[in-house]
């Protein structure tokens, strides 16, 4: 019996299979996660992601505070209302405490952090706010609905009022805007176009039902995982955790090294790693043989070196019709390796860790 979102009753009434996710009762699917996945790639699907943690940061020192807390630099968005930024938040050892998106809002910044890391993130944010003129406010009275797919934005525009539809029409990718009490962000976790909508919980059911009546397919956490893995997106707790450097989690591009005078938490640790060089990397794997790659399976490199690695996330890719994975392996790996599955070694191809974009395979 975990926490319930504003849409919980709707899920129960609509054939959702509910599971515990970090002490929240969430739908894993409403019948077929494969069909839900295809709906997002081909049309429009929606996810109740109200379990995520929304934290608003305001005050005169909001910018300099986040410049210290985050490995990416909010100065990149400070002068650009609505703009979004993807960042890691590191500890002093350069390990990833969380990955998050931060949006420039009218009065400061809005961050959306993971559900599983909520308590430690909030504690960390508070702990490191001393000396800064900031107000940190968790917005747990808000719900969040992600609508994703090539038709997603159109379907949302058709159910909101004309003012909101006009604002959405103007919203560029990786930007956000607020209309009355509803926050629209053109961001997502699927590799498709779409919106993430943050709104008062009291309004969530009405919007969800309107979208449902307009043909948007409800999708659960099962489809959410196959979509994000196809899109090459990390899942905290799998590709990285607080013991893992962003430099070995395909997150080096999110680090704003310049200006060198910006001393963010974890900077010196990852600078040392960068100078020394890293000896592992995160790659993509594709298996042509029947079967499903799964997190925790061992990777064996060909040749005398017999280096080993481990799968961080694996699944069946509905779009590709074969299994894909992300794996942490020795640097310099070639085009193929073997994965140990139930006492057999199966050959797999090594690819860049991004498999599908805008509904199309990147690996054929």
């Amino acid at each position, binding site marked *: 019996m975990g926490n319930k979102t504003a849409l919980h009753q709707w899920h129960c009434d609509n054939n959702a299979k509910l599971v515990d996710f970090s002490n929240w009762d969430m739908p*894993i*699917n409403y019948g*077929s*996660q*494969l069909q839900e996945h295809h709906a997002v790639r081909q049309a429009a699907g929606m996810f109740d992601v109200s379990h995520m943690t929304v934290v608003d940061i305001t005050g005169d020192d909001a910018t300099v505070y986040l410049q210290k807390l985050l490995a990416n630099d909010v100065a990149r968005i400070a002068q650009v209302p609505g703009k979004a930024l993807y960042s890691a938040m590191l500890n002093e050892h350069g390990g990833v405490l969380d990955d998050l998106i931060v949006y420039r809002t009218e009065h400061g910044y809005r961050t959306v952090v993971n559900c599983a890391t909520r308590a430690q993130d909030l504690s960390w944010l508070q702990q490191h706010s001393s000396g800064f003129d900031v107000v940190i406010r968790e917005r747990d009275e808000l719900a969040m609905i992600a609508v994703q797919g090539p038709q997603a934005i159109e379907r949302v525009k058709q159910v909101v009022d004309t003012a909101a539809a006009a604002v959405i029409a103007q919203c560029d990718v990786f930007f956000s805007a607020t209309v009355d009490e509803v926050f629209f962000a053109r961001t997502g976790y699927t590799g498709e176009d779409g919106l993430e909508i943050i709104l008062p919980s009291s309004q969530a059911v009405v919007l969800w039902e309107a979208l449902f009546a307009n043909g948007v397919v409800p999708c659960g956490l*099962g489809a959410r995982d*196959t979509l994000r893995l196809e899109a090459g997106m990390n899942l905290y707790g799998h590709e990285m955790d607080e013991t893992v450097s962003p430099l070995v989690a395909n997150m080096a591009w999110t680090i704003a090294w310049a200006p060198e005078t910006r001393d963010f938490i974890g900077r010196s640790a990852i600078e040392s790693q960068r100078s020394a060089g890293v000896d592992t990397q995160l790659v993509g794997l594709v298996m042509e043989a*029947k*079967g*499903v790659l799964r997190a925790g399976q061992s990777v064996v490199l060909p040749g005398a070196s017999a280096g080993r690695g481990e799968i961080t996330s694996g*699944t*069946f890719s509905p779009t590709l019709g074969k299994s894909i994975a992300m794996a942490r392996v020795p640097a310099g790996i070639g085009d193929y390796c073997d994965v140990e599955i*139930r006492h057999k070694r199966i050959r797999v191809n090594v690819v860049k860790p991004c498999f599908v974009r805008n509904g199309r395979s990147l690996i054929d």
Partner: protein
Amino acid sequence: MSEVRSELKYLSSHEWARVEEDGTVTIGITDHAQDSLGDIVYVETPEINTVIAAGEQVAVVESVKAASDIYAPVSGEVFAINESLEDEPEIVNSSPYDDGWFFKIKPSDLSELDSALSADGYSAAIED
């Protein structure tokens, strides 16, 4: 509530066995099993002419969520496999007792099924 068919025999590992009119046995997985597994993406069946023993692991069913071993309810020789499962494994989800059958065997000793569960026995087992 998952469907349990009265005319079938069952293993507690969620396989069903149907004795056909000609004395051969058709084997598959139950409605309860397909529901627990979720969307099925691969079924690995034994090859034709394989001789299997009751209780032996003879097949694998793989869903997005998990891989599950399938055990033989009776001994015998495999003479047919459901080729539709190659391209449409989801048939197991939509029709676990009919179109979603896995393989058929010529049993060597039908009395082995006496120790398998009846429909009531299986229903009770999955209620726990």
